């Protein structure tokens, strides 16, 4: 996944303000176009990641005999939420630009990381899960 500092850089205002101060219409237009493109790339990356996580999870569930309904519900909800946020961001970026979707991007990134961690934990054997808990892994 793309590092947090890079994510902040894509969506923060600082660079836009800097280009606006340069008094170059060409640079400002190029910057706006480029940041939109990068933001869409990031959304595509998040979508691919959660699709991968979902595939792994579905494969795991098919072979599992002891499903935990609470975990399954959490995975399903988070997957739907991240997918929804990605869709919302695509529309918002088109109309408003990346700067105005920073909060949504952070939220989607945190949810995707949480989804990956929940699926990772549920993939562990009961013994590994117990060991992880005693190590303080949550």
């Amino acid at each position: 996944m793309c590092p947090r500092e890079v994510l902040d850089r894509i969506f923060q205002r600082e660079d836009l303000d800097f280009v606006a101060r340069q008094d170059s219409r060409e640079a400002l237009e190029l910057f706006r176009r480029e940041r939109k493109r990068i933001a869409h790339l990031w959304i595509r990356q998040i979508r691919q990641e959660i699709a991968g996580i979902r595939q792994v999870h579905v494969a795991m569930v098919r072979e599992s005999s002891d499903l935990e309904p609470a975990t399954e519900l959490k995975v399903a909800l988070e997957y739907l939420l991240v997918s929804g946020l990605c869709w919302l961001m695509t529309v918002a970026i088109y109309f408003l630009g990346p700067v105005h979707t920073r909060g949504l991007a952070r939220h989607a990134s945190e949810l995707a990381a949480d989804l990956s961690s929940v699926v990772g934990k549920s993939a562990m054997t009961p013994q590994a899960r117990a060991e992880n808990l005693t190590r303080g892994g949550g």
Partner: protein
Amino acid sequence: MEARVKGVAVEAAREDLRNRTLAKLKGEFARLIYLASTRDYTTGQYQHDGLAKEFSREAATAALKSCHEEIFKTLGKSSLEDVVEELEVYACANHIEMVELIRTWENLQPYRIARPLECDPVTAELFASNVTVALTILRSHCLREDRRPPDA
């Protein structure tokens, strides 16, 4: 035990590379271009005879790769203002006319192949995009300088 010894050798090679070579280069772009140039573009392997002689080929390769990734990470998350400044430092330190640097970099886009082989694709795209915008900004600065009357 063997892994630990290797780790120590890589760390020593990194320190040597930082202190004896990279410290002498002015600016992050110069360091990035230098490190990228030590890589064979067909195999992706880093080569540095001096470093390999001092440590081992394996340690030298790992040190070059790690420093390359570190510098790219720094530049990848830099603000656009910093990228513009870094390009000015690069042109100045290498005694290249800014107009010439802009023309060459806009045409050949060498910064696209200066990235490490293994890096996050969004970070790589953001870096290339920032350099493209920075070059456009610098071009507008040059044009403004040209239009300024000589006595201003």
